[in-house]
């Protein structure tokens, strides 16, 4: 910045149009970041651009060295103010953008412009830490092409200083680079674990399910139109009533809120099942949810790498899911769990302080009716939900400090969280250990992509009760509600989202169904993007290698493939340029044609012979051809070596050669036609 202003040669001095192009390019590269960065940063950067344009218009406005120092300090301070620091993804990007933009005010030489153009490349890559959509890639791909075009324009060649020819050169470069890009993308060895972390993970996840439950927690989720995860079954998928996707398990309640209660840690010994049947294998692609749990069908029996299985049979990852996560699991649809330890027995019977007498009376009434039979008591409770006027609605009335009591005896309108929490509490009052499981229910088949989609709106809560004979048994009290009392009014608010098993959207009109079809199609594109581009990983590379029987070479196999593939492709691409056709002078071509015609009658031109000598030789050998050949040479020699206008000569010579097809000299009887002579 304090570099002395030396004399810069004119060829290295940037032009206004070039500075303008660079500034516009930097604006284009910055635009998608506006959504993600603090408005203060955008404001500062915008002001710098204004100053840049003003300095182009009025030279006097161009800031001097000291003003630039000041602006740099202000810009750095501004980023610091916006983010309380300079580290981390957002703050780092903000600082980088500020500095690159400030460099726009100090473009003394073409080299400065080239530097900024390279840095714009970096700015492009940084943006994918914020957003990974195909649209952004397409947009920034265009900006990259702009960067290349600008570099071509800056090269200074007289033929490419303008936009259009430069764009043509850049386009050719880009087209030739595409296959190489693909090869590099497929075969360049990746890191399986990051080398460092700068807090990039934060804030990328969408909202999703939490690990606690209180009235309204899930109905809020149902209004969320986001995708939770995708599932691809290896075999025919189980029926919709089996699609219980297991998430957090909640033991403890304070009468309003349910929480896990027990610490979620890897168990000393892996949980075992006494019986496991109807195994089903599938692959899940989990959308980032910023939580540590991975979802699996009730109950997972295998543990994918990077996760562990808790005693509650919940899949928990070592780290929270900040980017789309893919894993394979096997689940048992029919199972019997192992015995219960005392700690969990006690936790399964814990009741809050706000249990009311009428709740105890209700349970006592059932107990009196069924005796010791726990199973009959469960049926009694489910029957109660079915018989009494319980309504299932997305828009339940607000509940006070004792939601279970109010729901059971007064409002009787609720969503799955109301049913699950009151059912679990009633079971505990009856002395049956019970717990709440959070997760998702159902899944919508995407026929285009051949996979199931599970939406946030499929979030669900159900209950597991303990029986000495059956272990933990899943009971879904919500399903007990009389279908006639399911209220679809709330569902109309979530038409954009996937259908829930609990609501039918048959009433929805054609437009809505069309929108849903489009959405399904869009999602399969999205899934392909997720699988093939964003999720392409070391594992996929290794799978590719093993298919080529190079699996045991690992990374070396990749390099061994990468280098020959790159060189071969590059060779093919440039082969055309190496073997380009020469431009032959039309006169030379006509002369060669004359030689070729005469060669047919045995008068080929010798390599040493000049045209005049050749003409004399031909005339001597074949006097019948002499007039034509001499006329040709009379035109050709001055046109080729002298001052005769070439264009006229070319036309005349072409005409001369048009019907010049000398035939071999008939040896005997010159009257006979040569053709007939040949035939004999």
């Amino acid at each position, binding site marked *: 910045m304090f570099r002395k202003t030396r004399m810069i040669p004119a*060829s290295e001095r940037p032009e206004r149009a070039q500075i303008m192009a660079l500034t516009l390019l930097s604006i284009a590269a910055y635009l998608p970041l506006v959504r993600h960065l603090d408005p203060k940063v955008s404001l500062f950067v915008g002001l710098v651009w204004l100053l840049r344009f003003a300095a182009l218009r009025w030279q006097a406005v161009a800031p001097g060295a000291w003003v630039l120092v000041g602006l740099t300090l202000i810009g750095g301070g501004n980023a610091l103010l916006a983010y309380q620091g300079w580290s981390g993804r957002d703050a780092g990007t903000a600082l980088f953008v500020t500095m690159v933009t400030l460099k726009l005010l100090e473009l003394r030489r073409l*080299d400065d412009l*080239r*530097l900024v153009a*390279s*840095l714009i*490349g*970096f700015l492009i*890559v*940084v943006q*994918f*830490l914020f957003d*990974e959509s195909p649209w*952004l*890639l397409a947009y*920034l791909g265009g900006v*990259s092409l702009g*960067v*290349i075009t600008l*570099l*071509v324009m*800056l*090269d*200074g*060649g*007289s*033929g*490419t200083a303008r936009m259009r020819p430069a764009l043509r*050169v*850049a386009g050719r*470069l*880009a087209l*030739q*680079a*595409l296959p*190489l*890009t693909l090869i*590099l*993308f497929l075969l*360049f060895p*990746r*890191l399986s674990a*990051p*080398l*460092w972390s700068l807090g990039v993970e934060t804030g990328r996840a969408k909202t999703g399910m939490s690990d606690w439950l209180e009235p309204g927690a899930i109905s809020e989720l149902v209004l969320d139109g986001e995708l939770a995860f995708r599932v691809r079954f290896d075999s025919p998928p189980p029926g919709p009533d089996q699609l219980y996707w297991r998430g957090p398990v909640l033991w403890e309640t304070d009468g309003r809120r349910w929480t896990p209660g027990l610490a979620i840690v890897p168990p000393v010994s892996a949980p075992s099942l006494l019986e496991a049947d109807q195994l089903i294998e599938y692959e899940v692609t989990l959308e980032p949810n910023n939580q540590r749990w991975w979802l699996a069908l009730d109950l997972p029996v295998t543990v994918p790498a990077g996760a562990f299985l808790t005693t509650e049979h919940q899949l928990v990852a070592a780290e929270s899911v900040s*980017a789309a996560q893919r894993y394979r699991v096997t689940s048992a649809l029919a199972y019997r769990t192992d015995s219960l330890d005392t700690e969990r027995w006690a936790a399964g019977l814990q009741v809050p302080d706000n249990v009311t007498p009428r709740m105890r009376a209700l349970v006592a009434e059932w107990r009196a009716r069924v005796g010791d039979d726990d199973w009959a008591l469960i049926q009694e409770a489910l029957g109660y939900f079915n018989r009494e006027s319980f309504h299932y609605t997305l828009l339940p009335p607000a509940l006070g400090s004792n939601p279970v009591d109010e729901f059971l005896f007064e409002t009787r309108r609720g969503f799955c969280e109301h049913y699950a929490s009151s059912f679990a509490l009633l079971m505990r009052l009856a002395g049956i250990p019970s717990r709440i499981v959070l997760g998702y229910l159902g899944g919508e088949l995407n026929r285009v992509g051949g996979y199931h989609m599970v939406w946030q709106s499929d979030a669900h809560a159900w209950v597991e009760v303990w029986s000495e004979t059956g272990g933990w048994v899943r009971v879904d009290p919500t399903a007990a509600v009389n279908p006639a009392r399911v209220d679809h009014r709330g569902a109309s608010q979530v038409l954009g989202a996937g259908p829930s098993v609990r609501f039918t959207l048959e009433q929805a009109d054609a437009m809505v169904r069309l929108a849903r079809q489009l959405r399904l199609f869009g999602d399969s594109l999205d899934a392909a993007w997720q699988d093939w*581009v*964003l*999720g*392409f*990983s070391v594992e996929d590379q290794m799978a590719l290698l093993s298919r080529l029987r190079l699996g045991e070479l690992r990374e070396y196999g990749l390099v061994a493939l990468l280098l020959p593939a790159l060189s071969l492709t*590059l060779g093919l691409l*440039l082969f055309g*340029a*190496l073997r*380009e*056709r*020469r*431009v*032959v002078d039309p006169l030379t071509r006509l002369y060669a044609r004359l030689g070729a015609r005469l060669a047919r009658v045995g008068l080929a031109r010798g390599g040493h012979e000049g045209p005049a000598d050749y003409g004399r030789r031909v005339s001597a050998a074949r006097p019948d051809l002499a007039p034509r050949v001499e006329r040709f040479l009379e035109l050709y020699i001055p046109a080729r070596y002298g001052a005769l206008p070439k264009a006229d000569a070319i036309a005349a010579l072409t005409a001369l050669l048009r019907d010049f097809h000398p035939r071999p000299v008939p040896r005997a009887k010159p009257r006979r036609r040569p053709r007939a002579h040949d035939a004999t």
Partner: protein
Amino acid sequence: MGLRKRLDPGRLSGLFRRVAHGPDGLARVGPRQIYILPTKQGLRFGAVLLVMLLGSLNYQNNLGLLVTFFLASVALVAMHHTWLNLLGLLVRARGGPPVFVGEDATFEIILGTDGRRAREDIAVMDQAGRRHAARVPGGDQARVRISAAAARRGLQRLSEVTLETRHPLHLFRAWCYVSCTATTLVYPAPAAHAPEPSAAPGEGQSSRRQAHMGTDDYLGPRLYRPGDSPRQVDWKAYARERGLVVKQFGADQGREVWIDWDQVSAADPETRISLLTRQLLDAAEAGLRFGLRLPGGTEGLGRGEDHLQRCLTRLALL
């Protein structure tokens, strides 16, 4: 750019391949005669790419990798294009018109291609390190004029030119050394003043000499030529922005002089040659018939521009 200084062909000339020229003086740049290295800008671009690569790998960001690989591929392809831009180029060098010592000798470099592809931004480097860039259209030629200070009389040779290109992205610089045999004639520098030459012997009228030869009858203006005395320059015309014009005076057209090596005395031969040069120029200026006698031979009496050139050439090559 420090690298280029270290690779100065003068110091390491034996180590570099040159593009040889054929008997007709035409050289075609071959594949093994082209050198290529990244420019400073190329190194910076590479550094930025490296940071992009490390970052994308670390955060396992496939889109970042995709763009990084794209830009790297573009640079890789561009490197080959830079090389291809020189490959097959036809080069011929030609000497320029004669000049006097102290002026700049010019050479014309003719760049041509017989391919369809245009060659962008081909630069010929002169001795002072200046670039003279040209674009060679497909199947056509381009001419570049370079100059070198003419320090000594005689034939100034151009035995090698350096061609370079950074097209298309300025990330790589490809160059080659082309040998050539162009010569430009350098006349000796004329002395500021010279004694008057003797009149041609045997001519009776020669005694009719005038004190200020060549300043009598004004003949008209003509354009300045190197070697003209500043006294004869029409400075008024120059001030009126009519260019550097010399006032031409004609003396007695019939007079004849001999400019003779033995008639001029000087401490060393070069001074003597420069005095003779001045005498030649003055004689030609005055429109006299003049001859030149040198130890090696004699140029007979004559007049006119061609004669002057012949005489000057003799002096230059003496």
